[in-house]
């Protein structure tokens, strides 16, 4: 036997000064090594997914770039206010992205600083607070910012192209955007640290609710601070000069987004940009120093509290809860399946944290309709009644995204517990039944709110209101069934984080199928209904019978897209054996 145990070190105390420092890069190295291994050992379908995602990404980039370029060239053609409009547009985009960054950093920090499973090993090791802070901060920033970073590329490139900036511009833009991405990471991490200290993470959900409330409030405030409607309503100002003055005045001078905009526009217009860049880098450095000091002071206590959360005993008594008694009519098997689905969802904070983003998404969605210019010249009754069918497609897309996030992973999430279901006398039909309704019922509520509220805000005719409500209701069932079915055919049993599951190849296929289905249903219901509205509006004879065939076709399509995927999913689950 080889002797790995060295000669006994004297049990003399070790001076803290002799402890060699663990560097930030040492803490980040495993993540880098894992990324390299993932790249080398790619799984089945990874290459297809990569190609598909890259193709879609490049298409999106090109479209965004061309649109932004066209808009900026149009702005530049307006001599007086063109530069102001371009600056305002950039600061508004950056302000919106900044609020999204702050929210996603706050949530990512909760996971990276407190819930990550490797923290046990790190907290038991002599790792200095500073190294851990910097490593986790960079991870948090990277996890939260990569998407915003990618979205910014075509927009910034369009500014460069519109202003014919030189080759130095990309370097300058990176130098300006980097601190802009880091500031929300520092602020979000500090916010999470303070919240976990205030709310012992025994109640992670409470914490997330607070974050939700703060985030939504912050988003609304920032949105209002930007006063976006002023850009499209110059007639709201007393005179043109007042409009120009409002464009010229920074809407939020204390926001890093304003500083980035100031620096970039300064560079593009050959004006001074040094002070704006100094504010950005100075801001991030000062905040990071404060953040690190807070981390060193409060993290260990907060992490210990977060551990206690894992040990919290259930406070529910022996009495059967209300829902349990309400669902008695389902019988023991279906009732237990439904209750299990609901409980697992409600107690999984990684699932809940996604609801935060969903809530914000809905607020923004309805707010956008609220601020649509629905009166004034050009807004006819006919146009107002056509918008709901565009809204139907958009709401369908929102529902499909939510189904992808919450319904698609539900088979995968059975994961290591699937043996329990497979070894029990449980018909897979019942499991699917429970998952289907647990997914479909909240989606129905959401669909009604989304379409119903926007229809009311738009003030559409009763007929259009009913058709669009029926259309979205009919879409919920096939979307849920398709999500379940694709989830059964492309399961990822070993992924612990539910948020990662929809990014699989199966998730992409589901989204693409859903888009085709939504388009078909919106077309089949929207086109005849629009014709009917046009005919009524112009006083022509409207033929209600012309509506029957497309409506029946849409209903048949929805019914088929519900039943067939469910049947296939059942067969798949019956045959499924864990590898």
């Amino acid at each position, binding site marked *: 036997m080889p002797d790995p145990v060295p000669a006994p070190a004297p049990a003399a*105390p070790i001076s*803290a000064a002799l402890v060699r420092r*663990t560097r930030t890069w040492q803490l980040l190295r495993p993540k880098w090594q894992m990324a390299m291994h993932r790249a080398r050992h790619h799984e089945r379908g990874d290459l297809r997914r990569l190609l598909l995602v890259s193709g879609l990404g490049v298409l999106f980039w090109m479209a965004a770039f061309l649109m932004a370029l066209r808009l900026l060239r149009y702005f530049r053609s307006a001599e007086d206010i063109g530069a102001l409009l371009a600056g305002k547009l950039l600061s508004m985009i950056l302000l919106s992205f900044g609020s999204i960054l702050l929210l996603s950093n706050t949530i990512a920090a909760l996971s990276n600083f407190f819930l990550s*499973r490797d923290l046990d090993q790190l*907290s038991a*090791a002599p790792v200095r607070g500073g190294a851990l802070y910097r490593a986790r901060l960079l991870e948090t920033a990277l996890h939260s910012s990569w998407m915003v970073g990618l979205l910014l590329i075509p927009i910034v490139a369009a500014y460069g192209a519109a202003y014919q900036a030189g080759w130095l511009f990309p370097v300058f833009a990176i130098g300006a955007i980097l601190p802009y991405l880091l500031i929300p990471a520092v602020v979000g991490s500090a916010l999470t640290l303070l919240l976990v200290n205030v709310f012992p993470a025994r109640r992670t959900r409470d914490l997330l609710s607070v974050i939700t409330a703060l985030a939504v409030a912050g988003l609304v405030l920032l949105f209002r601070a930007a006063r976006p409607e002023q850009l499209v309503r110059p007639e709201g100002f007393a005179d043109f000069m007042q409009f120009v003055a409002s464009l010229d005045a920074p809407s939020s001078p204390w926001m890093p987004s304003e500083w980035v905009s100031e620096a970039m526009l300064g560079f593009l217009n050959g004006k001074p940009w040094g002070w704006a860049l100094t504010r950005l880098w100075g801001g991030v450095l000062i905040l990071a120093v404060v953040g690190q000091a807070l981390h060193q002071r409060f993290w260990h206590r907060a992490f210990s509290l977060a551990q206690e959360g894992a040990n919290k005993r259930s406070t529910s008594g022996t009495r059967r809860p209300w829902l349990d008694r309400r669902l008695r009519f389902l019988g023991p098997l279906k009732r237990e399946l439904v209750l299990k689905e609901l409980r697992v969802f409600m107690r999984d904070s990684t699932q809940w944290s996604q609801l935060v983003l969903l809530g914000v998404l809905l607020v923004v969605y309805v707010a956008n309709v609220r601020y649509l210019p629905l009166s004034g010249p050009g807004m006819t009754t006919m146009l107002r009644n056509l918008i709901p069918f565009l809204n139907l497609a958009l709401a369908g897309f929102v529902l499909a995204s939510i189904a992808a996030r919450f319904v698609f992973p539900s088979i995968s999430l059975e994961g290591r517990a699937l043996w329990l279901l497979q070894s029990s006398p449980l018909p897979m039909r019942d499991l699917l039944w429970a998952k289907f309704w647990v997914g479909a019922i909240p989606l129905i509520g959401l669909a009604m709110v989304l379409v119903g509220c926007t229809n009311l805000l738009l003030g559409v005719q009763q007929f259009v209101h009913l058709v669009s409500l029926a259309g979205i209701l009919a879409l919920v069932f096939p979307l849920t069934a398709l999500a379940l079915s694709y989830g059964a055919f492309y399961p990822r049993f070993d992924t612990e984080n539910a948020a990662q599951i929809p990014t699989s190849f199966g998730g992409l296929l589901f989204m693409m199928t859903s888009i085709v289905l939504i388009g078909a249903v919106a077309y089949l219901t929207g086109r005849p209904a629009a014709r009917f509205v046009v005919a009524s509006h112009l006083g022509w004879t409207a033929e209600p019978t012309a509506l029957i065939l497309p409506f029946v076709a849409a209903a048949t399509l929805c019914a088929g897209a519900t039943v067939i995927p469910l049947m296939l999913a059942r067969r798949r689950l019956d045959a499924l054996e864990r590898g």
Partner: protein
Amino acid sequence: MDRPHGMIEITSLHKRYGTFTAVRSLDLTVPPGELFGFLGPNGAGKTTTMRMIAGILQPTAGSVRIAGHDLLRAPLAAKRALGFIPDRPFIYEKLTGMEFLRFSAGLYGEEGADVDKRGHELLALFDLEPWRDELVESYSHGMRQKLIIASAFVHRPAVIVVDEPMVGLDPKSSKILKELFREYTRRGHTVMMSTHTLEIAEGMCDRIGIMQRGELVACGTMDELRISSGSDDALEDIFLRLTGDTVARELIEVLDA
């Protein structure tokens, strides 16, 4: 700084989760060169105690000293002397065994050829050498456990705190680990080990502590435990008497219900 009497010194250690007290006024000293066995029924507070010793959980009250360093006042120096093996360890799935060992050594400020040499020796000891460049995701449960144990030894700590080390190990690895612990303590180091396998505790440990409802209800050598229990029983009987011997009666009641 006072001269340490023990490598692990626990004084009036207390841990509360809300209204539930997990550990109550625990006093314990484990001297150098001792293999200390920590026993107790599920939920007795063993894991909570060990996680406080490892610096993962903060005590509600009381103090822990490792190799003479107060864990609260000088956490880095205290942790430097400690190797902790948790009951449900996490290993990065997408690292290889050797990469994980290098990373673990790096956390203790160790790197270079010396770490690689020790890593290879430890992997060879546990029959993991052929797997050293394979991703951890392809390891079995027992192999992961062996890798975690190897990672706790790679920085040559003065104290090892290990929660349920034998779970999932094959008989050969189990024997190697027992010999490793014995040899380790013979060389002046300290091991604190929790286990549910009473035969292992009885056969290996110099002293045994039994926890029940957050309190240390018995502590000493096997002979001392026998004297205090007033009989010449095996550890199992002493353990059951201290932690509740109504099990058999309850079992019959449940089966008859």
